[in-house]
């Protein structure tokens, strides 16, 4: 689904525009409108008048997956610097002051395959808000002194993570699951890289990824699409295309499959109660989009109270909770099982979990009724997910970055088409009998008491 910029240059601009619009118009939910500007910037307007607000978001195909070791964590630092200084608001005090004048609620996030920035304010401030975003995304100012102050802030975010045993477990799993390419999957990065980042490195990121043809602007709220498109075009229309697709020019190296299962016990005094995580390399949207759909259906089945997994672990008191999930990625998404085990029954919990996993692909692992219930849940969840207008841009842009707008729009319908055979294929391809990474985070004394290392290991 990577966009290709290979149209013959002899095409007139008008024809190119016409062709592009006609052929590339994606399917979208009702009330969603799409336009691609001549510079390649995609704009989606979501008309939703539930409250008299407007939310604007810009999403960029950037994040951990674009980072080799020397840039690990810098997409995230870049995201922080977006809010620092630009040509219109030359320091963060002025930047913040402007957000206060607009009464804006705002934030930014950095994930594996997306960086996004979003602002919500009164609908009448739409033009001012778009201009504000334009200045920040196109004309940032990187000063050494600002970076010196922001580096410990970003590193502080990392340290907060490291103070949480759940993060420590997740982080340990990532190291083993992705091996040499772990920096492509962990957006928080490497302390040393963050703490030595320079304005020059920020410019490298900007000049690789921050172009209209690698970005999506979404305007959602009590707005009219024609007016919103006109505003977006007048403000972002002169943002020059890079002329290249960054993800093609700077390709993502292939992730090496795990060759064997790996286990670790992370002992720390701050783990008041233990957690377990088991992870596999799952499907990529690029090569197996069908399994991306199927994964959600199976995750929903095993989340049902009636499922064999919940009954074996939670109902029987071996765990307080167990959840399975797949994270949608264009390039190899992880499948994770996260368990809060009963600390008095660690071995029983772990053994039962493995027993369940071994049965996942069996013909009778779930009933037809459970499959039907899971699909009904996914259908209803679409209504719940669309309740809060200010979250709609972010839900859509995640898919724009990692899958496509068509995939996003068709997803609910496609869930309904998933069969038992599809699920078994997904599980046999990625989970059952496949190498995994298993980690547990636990207090040293509890680990010793139950000799966890003796059973939390390869059989």
């Amino acid at each position, binding site marked *: 689904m990577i966009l290709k910029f290979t149209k013959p240059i002899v095409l007139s601009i008008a024809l190119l525009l016409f062709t592009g619009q006609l052929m590339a118009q994606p399917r979208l939910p009702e009330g969603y409108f799409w336009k691609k500007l001549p510079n390649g910037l995609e704009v989606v307007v979501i008309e939703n008048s*539930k*409250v008299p*607000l407007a939310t604007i978001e810009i999403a960029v195909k950037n994040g951990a997956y674009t980072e080799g070791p020397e840039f690990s964590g810098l997409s995230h630092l870049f995201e*922080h610097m977006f*809010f620092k200084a630009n040509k219109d608001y030359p320091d*963060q*005090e002025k930047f*913040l002051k402007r957000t*206060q004048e607009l*009464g*804006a*609620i705002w*934030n*930014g996030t950095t994930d594996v395959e997306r960086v996004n920035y979003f602002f*919500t304010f*009164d609908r009448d401030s739409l033009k001012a808000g778009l201009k504000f975003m334009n200045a920040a995304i196109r004309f940032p100012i990187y000063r050494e002194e600002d970076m010196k*102050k*922001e580096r410990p*802030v*970003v590193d*502080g*975010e990392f*340290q*907060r993570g*490291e*103070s*949480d*045993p759940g*993060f420590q477990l*997740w982080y340990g799993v990532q190291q083993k699951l992705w091996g040499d390419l772990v920096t492509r999957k962990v*957006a*928080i990065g490497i302390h040393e890289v963050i703490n030595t980042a320079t304005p020059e490195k920020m410019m490298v990121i900007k000049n690789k990824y921050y172009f209209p043809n690698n970005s999506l602007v979404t305007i959602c709220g009590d707005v009219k699409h024609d007016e919103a498109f006109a505003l977006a075009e007048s403000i972002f229309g002169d943002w020059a295309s890079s002329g290249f697709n960054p993800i093609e020019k700077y390709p993502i190296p292939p992730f090496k499959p795990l060759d064997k299962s790996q286990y670790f016990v992370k002992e720390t*005094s*701050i*783990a*008041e*109660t233990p957690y377990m*995580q088991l992870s596999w390399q799952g499907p990529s949207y690029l090569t197996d989009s069908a399994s991306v759909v199927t994964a959600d259906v199976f995750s929903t089945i095993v989340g049902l*109270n*009636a499922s064999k997994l919940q*009954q074996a672990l939670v*109902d029987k*008191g071996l765990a*307080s*909770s167990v*959840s399975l*999930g797949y994270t949608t990625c264009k390039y190899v998404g992880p499948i*994770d099982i*996260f368990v*809060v085990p*009963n600390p*008095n029954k660690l071995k029983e919990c772990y053994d039962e979990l493995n027993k369940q996993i071994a049965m996942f692909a069996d013909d009778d692992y779930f009933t037809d009724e459970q499959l039907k*219930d899971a699909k*009904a*849940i996914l259908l*209803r*969840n679409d*209504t719940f997910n669309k*309740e*809060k207008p200010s979250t709609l841009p972010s839900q859509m842009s995640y898919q724009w970055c990692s899958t496509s707008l068509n995939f996003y729009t068709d997803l609910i319908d496609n869930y309904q088409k998933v069969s038992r055979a599809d699920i078994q294929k997904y599980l046999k391809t990625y989970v059952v009998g496949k190498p995994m990474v298993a980690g547990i985070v636990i207090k040293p004394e509890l680990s010793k008491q139950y000799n966890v290392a003796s059973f939390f290991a390869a059989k």
Partner: protein
Amino acid sequence: MKKYVFSLLIAASVANINQAFAQKEAYETTVDGVKVIVQPSGNSIVEIQAIIKGGVQNYSADKMGIEALAMSALTECGTANHDKNSFKNQLDKVSATVFGYTNKNFAVLRMNCIKGDFDTVWPLFSEALTQPKFDGKEFTRIQQDAINNLKANESQPDVAIDKYADKIAFANRDYAKDPEGTVEILQKLTPEQTKAYYEGILTRSRMLIVVVADMDRATLESKLKVLLDGIKQGPAFDFKKSFFRVYKNTFSSENKDLATNYVEGITSGPEAGTPDFDAFQVAMRIFAQRHFLEVRTNNGLSYAPQSWFSSGATSVAKFSVSTTQPDKYIAVFDKLVDQVKTDGFKADEVADMKVTYLTGFYYKNETNNAQASSIASNEVVYGDWKRSLTLVGDVKKLTTEEVSDAFRKYIGNIIWVYQGDPKKVNPLLYTNGTLHKADNPVNN
């Protein structure tokens, strides 16, 4: 499933009570003596909350955790007509939520479903509230889960520091009680005790019902009548408010093997319903912006500097950071407070905050659940659910002087707590102040 996405800001602590958004006009009625507040939603989602007032006022310190366990048992330990599994399986089929929880001010049993599933979910909600079984086997299971959840929360440094701060600051007050309890207390609770406790607090005199949904009024009232007919009236209940003031700076610390250090301070705030309340709320929101600017932007001392007004039966101001340089933080903090006390807030800061309130008014209430929670909080804590609709207008009337004066009046001595490496911090800077001037915000 834990997923780690890294964001510019940690979610702001919105401890202050939110405002509600009125799509169509909300109304109030009374069924069997219980106040029922209905906010039409304009969407296909139904949110109903049955509130039992009191929270930490309902139990003694040696029974803390019992209300949380009781509320959890309502949906996890079976009902008169359903065992736990058939109850939960029915909810799963329609992707509906029915669950109970409690906080320091009140307990809630909430239901949330698609309107077309109402007839499936309502009987389950009704049974859970009025006919819970407290099955012994299931109770043993949720008792262990409650212990695990308590420990999991204590592993979250932000939660742990806030609990620690409450424990120190509110010693010998109701607010020192942790609704989650302790391992020792939870282990001793029996299903019989917990059931008896629940039956004691389930009275119409303590109840409030909040509905955010598009429902026919007559149908709703007849269903509520059947529900409430099965609940005894009980003695009149008075929700007690308690003013909090700190008379001496203190610093308490715990050694924890964390990658950074966590600091939290608690000081006074106006009681809900008093004239300073709205002005102080605005003052703390503006202070939060200054705190962010100075601590994070200008000094790079913390990713997560926060300050907020935590309102409830006991209303207090709170400040928190995670930082590797706690001594530098307190110097910046003292200077900030001193600056506000000396010069007050600026007119444009107050004007801007009024705009932000308007955005927040709608933003925080885009969901039926948030609207219902806002109405419930305002009714329980202030005795005035309509405040959720009038707050923006009330805030508009505030003057800069009123906002500055409210800050000056309540921000004084502070109870500081610290978790992390004790070698990194000098407690004297927290108790003696760092400015050493007559109007030092830290009153020595």
